[in-house]
């Protein structure tokens, strides 16, 4: 399950599932595509519940990132070790800013 809320100028996406993988990807892609229509280009992605993510799941968030444009910002909150490892191995920790919690993510994307 994915909760999407818009608070002021920030889209907050909270993933409740423990696994973001190829099995979950089709439904999650539909949710994210819908959420990003006419949405602000500042995104907080809360992965605090996600224990595992594969490259298919990661690709969905790359897609979100690419929609934000040059003035956009995205921060990822609460990543567990297996998810952090995926970001590190793919070097995507250089594009996604990983922070400990949602409050830090909000502060980061607001600049």
């Amino acid at each position, binding site marked *: 399950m994915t909760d999407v809320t818009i608070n002021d100028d920030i889209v907050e996406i909270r993933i409740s599932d423990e696994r973001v993988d*190829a099995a979950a990807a089709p439904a999650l892609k539909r949710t994210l595509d819908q959420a990003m229509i006419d949405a602000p280009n500042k995104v907080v992605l809360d992965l605090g519940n996600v224990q*595992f993510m594969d*490259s298919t799941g990661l690709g969905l968030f790359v897609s979100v990132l690419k929609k934000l444009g040059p003035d956009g910002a995205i921060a990822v909150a609460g990543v567990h*070790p297996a998810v952090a490892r995926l970001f590190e*191995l793919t070097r995507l920790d250089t594009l996604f800013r990983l922070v400990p919690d949602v409050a830090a993510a909000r502060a980061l994307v607001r600049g």
Partner: protein
Amino acid sequence: MADAPGFSCAATLEGVRQLAGLLQASMQAADVPDAARIDLELAVVEAANNIVLHGIGDQAGMNIELSVRQVPGGVEVVLEDGGSPIPSHLLDVVTKAGLEAESGRGLELITACTDRVDYASSAGRNRLVLFKALAGGTAT
């Protein structure tokens, strides 16, 4: 870590989840260190996803078999399937996906998460062997 019994699951994306759960349970029972468990789960899931999405396709009733065992210096995970084999040119040179790529990272991750990858295909069966070295040589 004693040799674990082999597992078999349906060659579907839901089956891959089941396989990952069985792998994790096996490695936790054997006290495989967290870092190695994380890497092996990711490598196995990426490999099994590739089997389902590229090797099996629409063929129904296919399975993926997995076994885990201790070998000198580390842990060996074997995945076997009866789908189409991985084209050899993809294994000869594993390229890194660009940062903005939305797919195509599977083989890159499999090699990054393991210390050795062996692959063979014969008589309609494919066999992928993933080796992960453990500090001190064995799980404690």
